[in-house]
């Protein structure tokens, strides 16, 4: 027997929720794959764009570094591309996630399922788009002649943290967008600002001391700093950076999920 009663603020029964989420995991993979296919559907290069996009992007930034920076410092270029690609993973979670609920209106109004599947799928799409860029990073590293070491395995926990953060952000922003649609218009500027505040176009260590303190308030500062440490210099990241990055990721994921789950039964009557 199923009982449906009025929506009250608060979490749904979590065990049943997680079970029904787990039983629908195939939906998440199928949905994200169909979204990826659709994004490049009908274009001449098709799925090749997944690898062409990051290549072109790094080409453009190579020009930027070469012309404006006036130097072809190899580690700077490697830092720029690898940080930029990780940044794109996060920002794709945001831009893909923001409309995931409001655009899923028809599905939400006509099928009963855990709504969190929609922003999660947006996160998976961002991950699928990130994976080919990882290969580009390694190609560039080899071309500019950076060394490899076992310390680079730190990339795995860093990526895990980045994913936690990305899912958390997608969940949070998709829910905010149901109640405050303006967020969609603000988002491009927010992402731009975040890019300039983060150690992507510059390296963290070149920042003046007082800015470095303020950057504790930037959720992706320590994440990107650790990533660059590992991917460019092939060194272990500092423990405190990793812990701060993890704290931000978990904080946003937990807060975002609570915010979302407490409201999701209200979505259908607010689209």
């Amino acid at each position: 027997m199923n009982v449906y009663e009025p929506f009250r603020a608060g979490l749904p029964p979590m065990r049943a929720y997680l079970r029904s989420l787990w039983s629908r995991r195939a939906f998440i993979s199928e949905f994200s794959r169909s979204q990826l296919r659709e994004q490049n559907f009908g274009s001449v290069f098709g799925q090749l764009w997944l690898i062409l996009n990051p290549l072109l992007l790094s080409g453009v930034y190579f020009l930027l570094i070469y012309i404006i920076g006036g130097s072809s410092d190899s580690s700077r270029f490697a830092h720029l591309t690898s940080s930029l690609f990780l940044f794109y993973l996060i920002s794709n979670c945001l831009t893909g996630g923001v409309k995931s609920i409001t655009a899923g209106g028809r599905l939400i109004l006509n099928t009963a399922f855990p709504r969190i599947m929609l922003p999660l799928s947006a996160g998976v799409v961002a991950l699928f788009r990130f994976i080919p860029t990882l290969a580009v990073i390694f190609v560039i590293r080899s071309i500019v002649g950076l060394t490899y070491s076992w310390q680079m395995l730190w990339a795995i926990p860093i990526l895990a943290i980045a994913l936690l953060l990305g899912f958390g952000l997608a969940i949070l922003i998709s829910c905010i967008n149901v109640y405050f649609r303006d967020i969609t218009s603000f988002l491009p500027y927010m992402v731009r600002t975040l890019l300039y505040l983060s150690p992507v176009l510059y390296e963290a260590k070149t920042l003046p001391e007082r800015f470095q303190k303020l950057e504790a308030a930037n959720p992706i500062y320590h994440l990107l700093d650790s990533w660059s440490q590992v991917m460019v210099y092939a060194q272990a990241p500092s423990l405190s950076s990793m812990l701060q990055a993890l704290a931000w990721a978990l904080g946003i994921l937990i807060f975002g999920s609570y915010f979302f789950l407490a409201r999701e039964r209200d979505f259908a009557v607010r689209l």
Partner: protein
Amino acid sequence: MISLSDSSLDAHGIHHEHPKNGIAVSITHVGLTYTTSIEKRPTLKKRLTSLGRGRKYTRVVKALNDVSLDVHYGTVLGVIGSNGAGKSSLMRVISGIVPPSQGRVEVYGSVSTLLALGVGFNPSLTGRANVYLGGLAAGMTRAQIDRQFDEIADFSELGDAIDVPMRTYSSGMFARLAFSVAATVKPDILIVDEALSTGDAKFKEKSLNRIKELRTDDRALILVSHAMATIADVCNEVVWLHKGAVMMRGEPTATIKAYQDFMQVRKSAASDEDV
């Protein structure tokens, strides 16, 4: 499009037997309120200009108002009423898509819903992809959908069109696919909203026959339609909703007649099929 609630299926996905006249759905004092912003999107400017004056830019619609209704196994319940009467909203509440704003709904069995708008939620994908996505979202496994897909495709008679993006479908083709999915899944409680009336004569007859086949003692059917002739033909009970409340409930011909008298439509060819 389909929603199979997990609880009434046991570990092997086998439906439990339901006794005739056992309760399938019990609805008590249910109300449903939609909140939509008038400006379509709550934008910052509207928020700012309305901040000081305490005016709300939202439209609150009471789609259902104190509805109480029992549906028993073995019944075919027709739901009629004018546009905006709350029929689709009631179906959404029964299938657990939207929680009621007041009251309580108890559902004993697995539900498959076919709310006409639900099928093909992503029109740029093919019919096949939409069937899979809809089924997966409703909690079916890929293997379950694989097993039923051919039957669905056959019944819909869409042929090659099943592999064409759904934005190219005509509304009748949409409805065919929607109905085929719902009628193939064979749930305990089948809800068909609108999809009966859009097909051509041949498909209409075919789907009516399918409905009659599905009319067994251990199943409950709920049909929402504006086609009075169809309702009178297959239902053994009819509910008439008006402005979110139950106006009348009972024997099909009497209820339909009361509804038609109320709506002041003469019995004409048009009223039989599309009131």
